[in-house]
C-alpha cells in the first residue's frame, strides 16, 4: 500500500511545523474535496495534517464592525451565524447555495478557499491537464467547456473556481490570514489567487507551508443590503454555471456604493471592479446596470460553447441590482 500518514495537529504552530518537515504533506480541513481527490488519484499527499480540530472555529465581530471568521468554522456554522446574516447576507446565502447540508457540515472556510476546480479533465487522471500535470495540455479548450471560464483564462487553462463562498468574500474585500514558519501573514483575497498565465498549477499566493487561520471582513455598511444568486443545472446540489454577489447602496436614485463579484466565470471569484467604477455616482437604472455589466464583460473571451455565460452574467447583474434598488426604495 502507498505509505502515507495521518496526524492531527495540536495547535497552529505545530501544524505549520509538521508541514515544514514534510513538503509533500497536505493540510486536511473538512476533507470534502481533498479526500475525494485522493480517491481519484488527483491528490497523493504523503501526510495528512488534520487541522479541523484547531481552535480556529470562532466568528467574532471586529472592533471596527467587520468580522473575523476562523478557518475551521464549518460552512453550516458560517451560514447560520446571526452576525454574518445581518452584516453580510450575501455571504450566508452563498454558503447555503453550495453543496449539500451534509457537505456543509464538514467543510471549512479555509478549505473552501483552497478547493480545486471541478473541471472534468482535471478530475480524470487519464486525461491531460495543465493544472494537474503541467505541460500536458488543456483538452477543455478544444473539447468540452460549456461550464468553463470566460474571463482571465489563458491558452493553458480555462478552468473555473467552484466556490460560492469565495464570490461573496471577494465582493466584501476579505483578507486571508495565515500562519507561516516565519509567523503570521495576511493576504487580501483580491491577490490570493494567482493569474492563470502559463502556470495554472500554481493557484494561490499563499507562502509555502502556510496554514490559513481565518478570513477577515472589513466593515462594509453596503453589505447589509446584499444578495447572492446562483444559476446551476439543477435547482440544488450542483456547481454554478453563473453566480453573482451584489451589494448596493442607492440614495435618491443614485448609486452611492456598490459591490459586485461573479462566480463560475474565471479561475478565481471575479470582482467586477470596472462595473463598480462605472456605476458609482451614476443613476440606478436598468440601462446603467446593463452598461456597467458590458464594461466588465468587454474583457470576456468566450470559447465556442460557453458564450452564454456573458449574457447570463450580464442578466444577473441587471436583475440583482434592479432587485436591490427596488428594495432600497421600499
Amino acid at each position, binding site marked *: *500500500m*502507498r505509505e502515507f500518514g495521518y496526524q492531527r495537529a495540536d495547535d497552529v504552530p505545530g501544524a505549520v511545523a509538521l508541514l515544514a518537515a514534510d513538503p509533500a504533506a497536505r493540510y486536511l480541513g473538512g476533507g470534502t474535496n481533498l479526500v475525494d481527490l485522493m480517491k481519484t*488519484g488527483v491528490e497523493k499527499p504523503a501526510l495528512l495534517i488534520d487541522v479541523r480540530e484547531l481552535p480556529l472555529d470562532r466568528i467574532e465581530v471586529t472592533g471596527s464592525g467587520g468580522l473575523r471568521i476562523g478557518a475551521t468554522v464549518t460552512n453550516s456554522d458560517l451560514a447560520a451565524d446571526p452576525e454574518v446574516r445581518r452584516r453580510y447576507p450575501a455571504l450566508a446565502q452563498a454558503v447555503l447555495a453550495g453543496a449539500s447540508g451534509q457537505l456543509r457540515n464538514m467543510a471549512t472556510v479555509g478549505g473552501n478557499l483552497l478547493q480545486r476546480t*471541478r473541471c*472534468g*479533465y482535471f*478530475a*480524470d487522471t*487519464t*486525461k491531460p491537464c495543465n493544472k494537474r500535470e503541467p505541460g500536458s495540455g488543456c*483538452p477543455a479548450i*478544444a*473539447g*468540452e467547456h*460549456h461550464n468553463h471560464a470566460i474571463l482571465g483564462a489563458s491558452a493553458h487553462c480555462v478552468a473555473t473556481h467552484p466556490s460560492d463562498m469565495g464570490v461573496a468574500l471577494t465582493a466584501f474585500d476579505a483578507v486571508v490570514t495565515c500562519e507561516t514558519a516565519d509567523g503570521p501573514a495576511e493576504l487580501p483575497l483580491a491577490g490570493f489567487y494567482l493569474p492563470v498565465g502559463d502556470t495554472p498549477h500554481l493557484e494561490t499566493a499563499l507562502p509555502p507551508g502556510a496554514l490559513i487561520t481565518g478570513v477577515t471582513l472589513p466593515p462594509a455598511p453596503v453589505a447589509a443590503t446584499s444578495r447572492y444568486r446562483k*444559476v*446551476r*443545472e*439543477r*435547482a*440544488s*446540489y*450542483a*456547481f454554478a*454555471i*453563473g453566480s453573482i454577489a451584489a451589494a448596493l447602496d442607492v440614495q435618491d436614485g443614485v448609486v452611492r456604493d456598490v459591490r459586485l463579484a461573479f462566480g463560475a466565470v474565471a479561475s478565481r471569484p471575479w470582482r467586477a471592479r470596472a462595473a463598480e467604477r462605472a456605476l458609482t455616482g451614476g443613476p440606478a437604472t436598468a440601462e446603467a446596470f446593463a452598461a456597467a455589466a458590458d464594461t466588465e464583460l468587454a474583457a470576456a473571451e468566450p470559447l465556442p*460553447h*460557453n458564450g*452564454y455565460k456573458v*449574457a*447570463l452574467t450580464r*442578466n*444577473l447583474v*441587471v*436583475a440583482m441590482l434592479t432587485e436591490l434598488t427596488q428594495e432600497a426604495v421600499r
Partner: protein
Amino acid sequence: MTAMTGTVAAAGTVGASRTRMEGRAKVTGAARYAGEIPFADLAHGWLVASTIARGRVRSVESAPVLAMPGVLAVLHHQNAPRLEEFAGMLGPDPTIQILQNDRVPHVGWPVALVVAETSEQAREAADALVIRYDQEPHDIAFSAQHPGMYTPDDSPLLVTETGKGDIEAGLAASAVVVDEEYTTPEEHHNAMEPHAAMARWDSGRLEVVDSNQGPFAVAQDLAKMFSLDLASVRVRSEHVGGAFGSKGLTRPPVVLAVMAAIVTDRPVRVVLTRRQMFSVVGYRSPTAQRVRLGADTDGRLRAFDHQAASLTSTIHEFVESSAGIGRVMYDADAHHTSHRVVRLDVPTPSWMRAPGEAPGSFALESAIDELAHKCGMDPIALRARNEPAVGPVSGLPFSSRNVLGCFEEGARRFGWADRDPRPGAAREGRWLLGTGTAAATYPARVAPSTAAVTAEADGTFTVRITAVDLGTGARTALTQIAADALEVELDRIQVKIADSDFGQAMIAGGSMGTRSWALAITAAATELRAQLALPGDIPSDGITARSDTAEAIGALARQERHSFGAQFAEVAVDVTTGEVRVRRMLGIFAAGRVVNPLTARSQLIGGMTWGLSMALHEEAIRDQASGAHVNADLAGYHFASNADVPVIEVDWVDDPDTHDPTGIKGLGEIGIVGAAAAIANAVWHATGVRHRDLPIRPDRVLLAGSRGC
C-alpha cells in the same frame, strides 16, 4: 401540505395497498446487497479499464503490482480463464467476452482485474498497474448524417422498418406539415447501487451473489461461458439497489468474479465504481430523430413518418427502437417508421427504462404538439381526432385502449380547459409560465416462467419463483397475488425469490415481470388447490405444485396489448438565466390491473421523475479527442434532486383486459414515456420557443430566449 396518496388495507388482496415486505430490513440497514454479504477468506477484485478508445493492449506490466502488499493475482487477456462463446437470452453477447483478446473497442473496456486481500489494496494496485497500448484513431462523433449509418436487420427485439402508402404524396397533399429533427443525448441508468458480484466454489458448485434483474438468466450464461452444468451454478440476488435495465443482462463484474474465484480458489467480490458504471453496464444511445407529419387543417393525419437514428458499438449491435411508438399511437394512410444505426468506438448501449419509447415519445409527442399549434387546435383534440381503431401497422385489435379516458381525466384534474393556448401569455415575476401535455404508451408483454407453490404442513404456503425485486415492490405484489390465488390471508404466504435454483423465470424487465410471474404463480396455485382438494393430510415436506406458462402464453391471442397514459406538466422559465422549473406534473394511466396501489403509484411517479430528469438534466458528454466521458460521475451527470421535483400526482383509469388471466400490464416504464415531451411542450407554451434538443439546459434556454410573447 399535500394529502398522502393511497391507503393501507388490512387484508392482503390484489388491488389493495400494502407496505413493502422487506421494508423493515431496508429502513434499519439490515438488508444485504450483493456487495455486502460477508464470506470467510473473501478476496476483492478491482476492474482496470482501458484509457484508449480503440486499439490493442500491447502489454500489461503485472510484475510490480504482484509485488504489492495483499495482491493475489492480475488477470488480463493473456492469463484469464478462457470463455466459451455462447448465445444468451439475446444471442451472442460480446460485451462480456472480456479479457479474451487484446482488442480495445472503447474507453472503459475491461483490460485487467487486480485481485487482492482487501478492496483498498486492490484499488491501489489497479491504480499502479501500467498497461501499454497500440492506439488507433477512433470515431465517436454521432450524428444522423454519419456516413457509417446503416439499416439494421430485423431481430427478435426490433422490427427495423414499417411502411404503407406514399409518404411524399401524403405530405404534398397535406395542408399542414411538420418536418423537424429532435435529438436526445447519451443517458445512463445510474441505479443507486453500483453493480456488484461475489463468486465462490461451494462443494463443487459455483455460488454467485450478484446484483441483477434475472438470476436464472445469469446462471444460464455463466454455465455456458464457463462450461459448467446449469445444475452446478447458483445465482442469488436477494436485494437489488435499482437497475432500470442496466442489470438486465450478465455484466462484467460477475464474469470477472467467477474468473477470479477460479484462479485464486477463493471467494472473490467485484464492485464497480460509479465511474466504471458509465462504460460497462449499458446506457441509452443518443438519438437523432426526424419526424414528418402531414395533416388536413382539421388535424387529421395524412402522412406519418418517423425516422430514428442511434449508435452502437463496434462489437455488438443494439438499436434504440425510438420509431416504434408511432406504430401504436397514430394512423395515417401513408405511414412509415424506420431505424438506422452507426457503429462507433463507444461502449455498447442497452435497455434503459422504456427503451425506444422514452426518446421516441419525446420526438413524436413534441411533433404532435407542433402540429396542433400549426392547425390551431388543442393538442388533446388533435390526438382524439387521430385515435386508431386497430393497430396502425399490425391491423390487430387492441386488447384495451383507454388513452382518451386518460386525457379526459387528466385534463379535468389539471385544469386544462382554462388554458390560454397562446404561447408566452402567462408571467409571474421573472418566470414565464406554460403548460404542456403528451401521450404515453408502452407494450404489455409477457414471457414464460415457472413457479412452485408448496402447501406446508403447518398451514402456510411457500412460493418459489426466480423473480427479482429491484425496488419495484415485486416481492409484495407477488405475495398479494399468491394470497388471492390461494384464497388465504397474506400472513400465511411466504414468497421466496431471486434464487436461480427456483428455476426459469422472466427477468425483472420490460414491464413484464409482474404479469409473467403472476401467471406462473397463479397457475401453480390453481394446481395446488386441486391437489389439496383431494382427501389426505399434508406430509411433513408439504405438497408442491409447479407451473410452466410457456404453453399458455403461446396460446394467447395476437393483439395490440399496451398501457397508455396522458402526461401533463406546468413549468416556469426564466429566459434571462435559462432556468426551467417544473411546478407540477400529473400522469393518468390506463395500465391494466393495479396490484398494489401504494407501490404502483411510486413506480409511476418515479418514471415521471425520470422524464423530468431527461427533459432538463441528463446528458453524458464525451470528449472527442479521447473518446472518454468528461462527466462520468454524479457530480457531472445530473439527475433530478429532491429540490428539482414538484408535486407529482398520479392516478389511473379503469383498463379492464379480459383477454389476459391476470389483467396486469406492468408499470415500470410507462411513467417516463411522454413526460419529457410534456415538459418540452410546456416550455414552448411558456416561451414560444420550441426546444428540440434535450436536455433543455439553461444555456440553450438563455440563448434561445423567448418569442412571440
